[in-house]
């Protein structure tokens, strides 16, 4: 059982605790480089009640599709989510450690980190991950959540060096981010309702999948649809495949009408 004298106590730092117990989640020196790319489209946009976070489901290895039902949007805790683009293995590991860090902090301190604190924590992890990013295993996440002190949705974009940039309207990441970003930019308004924001997210993901070979579109034959999530004061909610399918069906009608 880990027990520390006051001067050596790792406090609320879960990464430090892991390392002290011989469990380094991010090995920093690797021999050589791997080109893992960042084939994905994930996005987040603010709406009146909070924020919508969405992502496609495709994972690729070179020109091969390695997974059709990847999850790229994860709840970080009850009121925030992180969407990932980049090398799948390190990205999922980073999300896992991030989720554990937030819950660990909450339990040790008796209250959760502020949204700002969570965003800074993720930036810190990215900074620590820079050596791996330099070797081709970059992770570029989006972090979004409902800020309970400001009572509004907020979203943050990051770069591989740990740069943290708060966005007012929307953020996109991954190989399809340019296309998705343009679609959102043209359709965005400050007063988008939750359902309007979901429709815009679906439209953006569809156009990204239409232009980018590494982004997956809706797959009605298998019933696999991009992941749509909403974070409001009620917390994080992921739409079921049926619900996402319905938003895509509405979009299909809109397309058909021209």
């Amino acid at each position, binding site marked *: *059982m*880990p*027990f520390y004298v006051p001067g050596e106590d790792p406090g609320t730092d*879960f990464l430090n*605790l892991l390392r002290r117990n011989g*469990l380094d989640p991010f090995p920093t020196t690797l021999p050589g480089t791997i080109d893992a790319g960042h084939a994905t489209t994930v996005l987040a946009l603010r709406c009146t009640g909070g924020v919508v976070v969405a992502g496609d489901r495709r994972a690729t290895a070179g020109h091969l599709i390695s997974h059709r039902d990847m999850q790229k949007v994860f709840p970080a805790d009850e009121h925030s989510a992180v969407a990932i683009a980049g090398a799948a293995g390190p990205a999922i590991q980073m999300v896992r450690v991030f989720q554990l860090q937030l819950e660990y902090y909450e*339990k*040790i301190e008796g209250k959760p980190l502020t949204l700002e604190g969570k965003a800074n924590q993720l930036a810190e992890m990215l900074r620590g991950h820079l050596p791996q990013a330099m070797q081709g295993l970059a992770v570029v996440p989006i972090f979004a959540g409902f800020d309970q002190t400001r009572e509004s949705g907020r979203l943050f974009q990051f770069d591989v060096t740990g740069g943290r940039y708060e966005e007012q309207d929307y953020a996109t990441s991954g190989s399809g981010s340019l296309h998705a970003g343009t679609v959102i930019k043209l359709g965005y308004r400050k007063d988008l309702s939750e359902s309007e924001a979901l429709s815009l997210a679906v439209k953006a993901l569809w156009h990204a999948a239409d232009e980018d070979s590494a982004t997956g579109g809706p797959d009605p034959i298998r019933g696999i649809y991009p992941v749509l999530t909403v974070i409001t004061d009620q917390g994080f909610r992921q739409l079921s495949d049926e619900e996402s399918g319905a938003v895509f069906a509405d979009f299909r009608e809109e397309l058909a009408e021209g």
Partner: protein
Amino acid sequence: MAMPGMYVSPEQLMQDRADYARKGISRGRSLAAVEYQGGIALVAENASSTLRKVSEIYDRIAFGGVGRYNEFDQLRIAGVRYAELKGYQYSREDVDARSLANQYAQMLGQIFTHEMKPMEVEIVVAEIDSNGAPELYRIQYDGTVADEQHWCCIGGDSEAVLDRLSDGWSQDLDRDAAVRLAVTALAGTDRSISAQELEVAVLASDNGRRCFVRLEDAETDALLAI
């Protein structure tokens, strides 16, 4: 010249330490844990609303401590760390109360025999497993572990509280009834305790992944008023 009175027999030494620890624990107020259909209620007399006696350790595990606050809080944090490390290394389902209780027992036993002073604490580790079956462990200042059935009490006046718990407990308690039983058992017949002086939390198997839920004062007030 030999110094008179320097020899203390091991029996005496252990006895003195045990007396010392018991004295410290008996000064504080008690904490009761009561099983009910689908959960465990943990209720402590605690005038502070920030220095907690009952807390969350992991998805299905809660912790209760009485005695010296800084000491049992240190144990709580060690428990969270143990559980998180184990869950990270293996899986969340591999984290269980029995192994945590044994870890606490090892640590408290070690401190009791080897340190200058024993910890003046008594703790309870509660778990509701994935099938809704409850487990309760009581660990004493010297590392003694007991696997308790249906209810348990730690702290100052535990004998009297245990009698009242055993009189009032039945298989079909629901959450609110379990909390009421714990409160009346802690209070006894000649006084009542208000929600502001209580700390109430439950491990509820229907609360999703994290079973631990604190009851707000207003909620406790409402259920005690019935």
